[in-house]
């Protein structure tokens, strides 16, 4: 029983990690309808920034978030303004996909140029030590990630539903032309939303960096799971991404322990496919609803 609880606890912690790296991706897709293939590289950039701030200034990795999140906000806003926006009128929307894939490759190579192929270890500041929580032991840093992911979901939902700007963002996502007729500056909302999505990745970076070694290709390591989580939860749904992440985390952990660590991914992707066959729009997806207003 205790082993089972420990495996579940590990799964929840993994789910928290998957959630924190996926929220920004689903936010950007839900609003701008652009899949950011450079998402993993945004995370990589944030982790390197956390590494630099922590090692050069001697700050606690979590303290670096006050620089990393705004820096990523700017990176996201600039990406939207200078890369995506000029392509919005492109006749073929796949152009935007290629643009973000290009950005991803450019960022990986830029990181190789600056940091080389070496691994950068952000000081863990005690976050890698385990704590006893009832019958289970977990890493302190992982617990904070799960808590932050949950708080981020609640905070974003509050912002999107209860504030004027948040409602304007949802309005743009649901009907771009009508949003313009309300007096909403749609291009500005897109820049803002990409910035917010990227800032979420910035927060994730500072939380993840003390636990995982940073390298130029760390983004590709995380990004596939982020895409699975986002599709499973329903593209664009923030609570969906959280629930999807927890499901994938639990599956990963349970399958890894009870079925065999080699088959972990086979089980995760198998269940993922079954859910998508039964509910193609994802768990919390609304996009495929038939009752849409023309």
């Amino acid at each position: 029983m205790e082993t089972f609880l420990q495996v579940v606890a590990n799964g929840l912690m993994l789910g928290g990690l998957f959630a924190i790296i996926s929220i920004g991706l689903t936010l950007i897709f839900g609003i701008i309808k652009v899949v950011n293939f450079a998402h993993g590289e945004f995370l990589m950039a944030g982790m390197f920034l956390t590494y630099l701030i922590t090692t050069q200034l001697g700050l606690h990795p979590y303290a670096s978030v006050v620089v990393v999140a705004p820096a990523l906000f700017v990176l996201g806003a600039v990406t939207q303004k200078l890369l995506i926006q000029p392509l919005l009128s492109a006749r073929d929307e796949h152009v935007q996909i290629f643009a973000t894939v290009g950005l991803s490759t450019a960022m990986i190579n830029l990181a190789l140029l600056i940091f080389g192929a070496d691994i950068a270890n952000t000081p863990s500041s005690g976050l890698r030590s385990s704590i006893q929580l009832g019958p289970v032991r977990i890493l302190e840093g992982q617990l904070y990630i799960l808590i932050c992911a949950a708080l981020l979901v609640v905070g974003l939902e509050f912002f999107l539903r209860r504030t004027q700007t948040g409602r304007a963002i949802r309005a743009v996502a649901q009907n771009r032309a009508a949003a313009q007729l309300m007096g909403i500056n749609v291009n500005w909302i897109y820049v803002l939303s990409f910035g917010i999505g990227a800032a979420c990745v910035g927060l994730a970076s500072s939380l993840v960096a003390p636990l995982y070694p940073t390298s130029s290709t760390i983004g590709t390591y995380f990004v596939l799971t982020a895409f699975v989580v986002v599709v499973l939860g329903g593209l664009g749904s923030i609570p969906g991404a959280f629930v999807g992440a927890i499901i994938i985390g639990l599956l990963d952990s349970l399958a890894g322990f009870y079925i065999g660590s080699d088959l972990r991914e086979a089980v995760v992707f198998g269940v993922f496919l079954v859910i998508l066959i039964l509910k193609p729009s994802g768990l919390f997806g609304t996009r495929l609803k038939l009752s849409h207003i023309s």
Partner: protein
Amino acid sequence: MLNIEGIDAGYGATTILNGVSLEVNQSEVVTIVGANGAGKTTTLRTIAGLLKPTTGRILFEGEDITKMSAHDIVELGITLIPEGRQLFPDMTVRENLLMGAYRRGARDHQAETMDHVMELFPRIRERLDQHASSLSGGEQQMVAIARGMMARPKLLMFDEPSLGLAPIIVAQVFEVIGKIVASGATVLIVEQNVFNTLKAADRGYVLENGSIVLSDTAEALLKDDHVRQAYLGI
């Protein structure tokens, strides 16, 4: 209040409007009459800034708004209630109405305008917490008009408000428009129901193949042979 001076506009290489000029004065109700494809919707979309004219000028209260973006035009006080309602489907009715009051000029008066709009649309009050997509077509049209009113516009433009609605709902829509007109609003309306619209309007323009072919008081247009034959079927 609104002066359009010889605009050409269209989509891509297709020109739809050819040298359209028209004006709407303060507290006036003006209608544009025309067949499908004559350019009525294009005219309204161009005024709203969703389309940019290739030649000509659009002035609002003396200010040149020809090149202004759609959201800035809303800020000046021009609101378009678009064809096909265009509500925000996954938002509640209340949220839709709040989006209507997004304009700076309306934001501070939100609660007050909401009370006024609720008086005009008592049936919306019961629907405030429902998703817009769950309403019937007629109810959606009422919400679309209410949302337009929430902006407290100086000029309110209607694009085909009765399109696709059952006759009994059409009557309700016209009743509401009548109340809005009676309150002294400045209105520019495009509507397939030409007879009812001319009855409610002060003046009208007849648009054919992207050009204004006739303009007169609504009363005179109702008696005009060409209008009677082509648009009233009399």
